[in-house]
């Protein structure tokens, strides 16, 4: 009885007793959820256009952020460093397409997945050699990200919101909107979706596989840079981000591999739920640290009932 009460009643009683704290938890969850969603977005973009499950998206975030900071440390002004990083990400996309993806066209999905693991390792090793492994400060002030804390007093309580978190959420929303417009309205966007639907048919109407792949990987690189800036301004830039970036996998599974809106909803859902679980169930009952696995177990549970995720296309198998 005691245990059931601790699981099913006490947490909710706590929530109602301190609604301002609940709001704070929800906001923190929302922000980290948006960051998960951003990483997942890079995955979805590449998966939709080429059926490649891009394991390297996490390390691309780290790599982009490190490049940005590194270029700035070399003396470039912040916005030039930003442009320089974009150039580096473009070159990376070209090299990956030319060296890794092109020779592997038409191989089974699992091969391409493993190739992206190879890319990951290469970037981890290369990044550590070039930039060093220590934690670095993101140049958020130089890029004009505000650094104030806003206080609110809902329910006669206290709610603290960092201005940079608001910037992150708004920025992410704008980027997603831009991405959706690009994919749905522009010619290139349609080409990307066509390639994802049916590569053979897309090729036969003259869509260039190589151009699109470079474009998509470059776009994933841009998203990675944005994510890197957002995350770096909260927690600094280090290779630890890579492990956190693995969280994008359950986000994808929850949302479905093909769906952009699924990635957003999945990311926010996982961000909020894992924070709630950690604060109200994990810390009092299990000794904390549940954020490490909650997302995976949640995704697993959802997958058991919907094997294609919440928003994924129904999996139809033919023999």
């Amino acid at each position: 009885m005691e245990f059931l009460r601790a699981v099913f009643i006490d947490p909710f009683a706590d929530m109602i007793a301190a609604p301002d704290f609940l709001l704070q938890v929800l906001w923190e969850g929302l922000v980290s959820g948006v960051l998960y969603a951003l990483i997942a977005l890079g995955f979805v973009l590449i998966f939709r256009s080429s059926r490649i499950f891009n394991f390297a998206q996490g390390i691309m975030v780290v790599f982009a952020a490190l490049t940005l900071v590194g270029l700035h440390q070399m003396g470039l002004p912040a916005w030039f460093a930003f442009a320089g990083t974009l150039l580096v990400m473009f070159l990376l996309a070209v090299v990956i397409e030319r060296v890794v993806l092109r020779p592997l066209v038409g191989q089974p999905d699992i091969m391409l997945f493993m190739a992206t693991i190879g890319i990951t390792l290469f970037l981890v090793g290369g990044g550590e050699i070039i930039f060093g492994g220590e934690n670095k400060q993101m140049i958020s002030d130089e890029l004009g990200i505000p650094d104030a804390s806003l206080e609110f007093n809902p329910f006669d309580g206290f709610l603290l919101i960092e201005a940079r978190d608001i910037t992150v959420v708004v920025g992410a929303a704008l980027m997603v909107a831009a991405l959706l417009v690009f994919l749905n309205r522009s010619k290139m966007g349609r080409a990307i979706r066509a390639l994802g639907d049916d590569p053979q048919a897309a090729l036969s109407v003259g869509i260039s596989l190589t151009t699109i792949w470079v474009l998509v990987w470059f776009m994933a690189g841009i998203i990675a840079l944005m994510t890197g800036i957002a995350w770096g301004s909260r927690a600094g830039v280090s290779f630890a981000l890579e492990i956190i970036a693995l969280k994008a996998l359950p986000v994808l599974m929850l949302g479905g591999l093909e769906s952009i809106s699924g990635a957003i909803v999945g990311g926010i859902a996982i961000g909020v739920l894992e924070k709630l679980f950690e604060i109200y169930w994990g810390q009092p009952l299990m000794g904390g640290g549940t954020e490490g696995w909650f997302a995976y177990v949640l995704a697993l549970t959802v997958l058991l009932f919907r094997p294609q995720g919440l928003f994924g296309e129904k999996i139809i198998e033919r023999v």
Partner: protein
Amino acid sequence: MLYRTSGQFKTTYRSDQALFPIRQDAILLGLILIFAWAILPFTASEFAFQTLLIPVLIYALAATGLNILTGYAGQLSLGTGAFMGVGAYACYKMITIFPEMNLLVAVLASGLFSAAVGVMFGLPSLRIKGFYLAIATLAAQFFLIWLFEKWAWLYNYNASGAIQVPNVEIFGVHFAGPLATSQAQYYFVLVVVTLLTLVAINLTRGNLGRSWKAVRDMDIAAELIGINLLKAKLTAFAVSSYIVGVAGALFVFSWRGAAEPNLFDIELSFRVLFIAIIGGLGSILGNWLGAILIVALPVVLNTVPEVFGLDIKSATVEHINVMIVGALIVFFLIVEPHGLARLWALIREKLIHWPFPY
């Protein structure tokens, strides 16, 4: 010339299906076994035992376990490290609860625990496929590591949160713990690994192995020809986790001597996965070649610059090592998707015909 197969006629199906259809294969393997059992233990240095021989054996065993699941049954797993951890902790608990227990029995029994956990996390594979399944194994990975950290009973409430291997002796010889010699540890690992490799080879050649391969190639078709998917997938998870668990127990008891939860984190899972990929998925031999490559590469990278008088920091060497492994994976996927094992098969083919082109 050495590999000439002429004159070796098969008159029965049984001999055609034998473990070594070609005599030279058996001779070659015999030589390697003699080398491993009788020559290496007496000539190897302490350094070679600890950085090359024992790790190669253990990693090859772990990769064999993973290969059964991923290479033979086609179920991608990213949770190998955690299952190794289950084996290690199970072995530790058994040895500390029953100090009289024979280490060999304890190590072989610890696999049963990881097999049980593996089957539990394998259950979703009946409904979830491909990349989606990788999440189930990732859930195992992160959840189990968390459990190793939080469940104090597992590490006997040590203040450090780590497990320390006690001295274990069989018939008066120390095989594990601080008092054990490298030679004894090596022999112990060799016995277990030889035994389990033989079991793995025969399992994959047999009825069960064929049903795994059918499931890997297309599970719906396999079901249509009468293969019980439930049985095939769960046995693959059980056998794979068993071997991985035993490898984990050896990993701690015969090599590391102590372990804390993050030893079994996702990097270990990936290292074993790389061994399986580089060696060749769906091949037992490949695990050995892959393990030799992955274990020896950092050692070689550490010694080569010294020979040439270059001074490279050890951290840099480690990063270069990571880069090379990444490049190797991409290289093998492009040039030889079936890995090192396939390279050996090609060489063998050439040797059989040599010096004739066909």
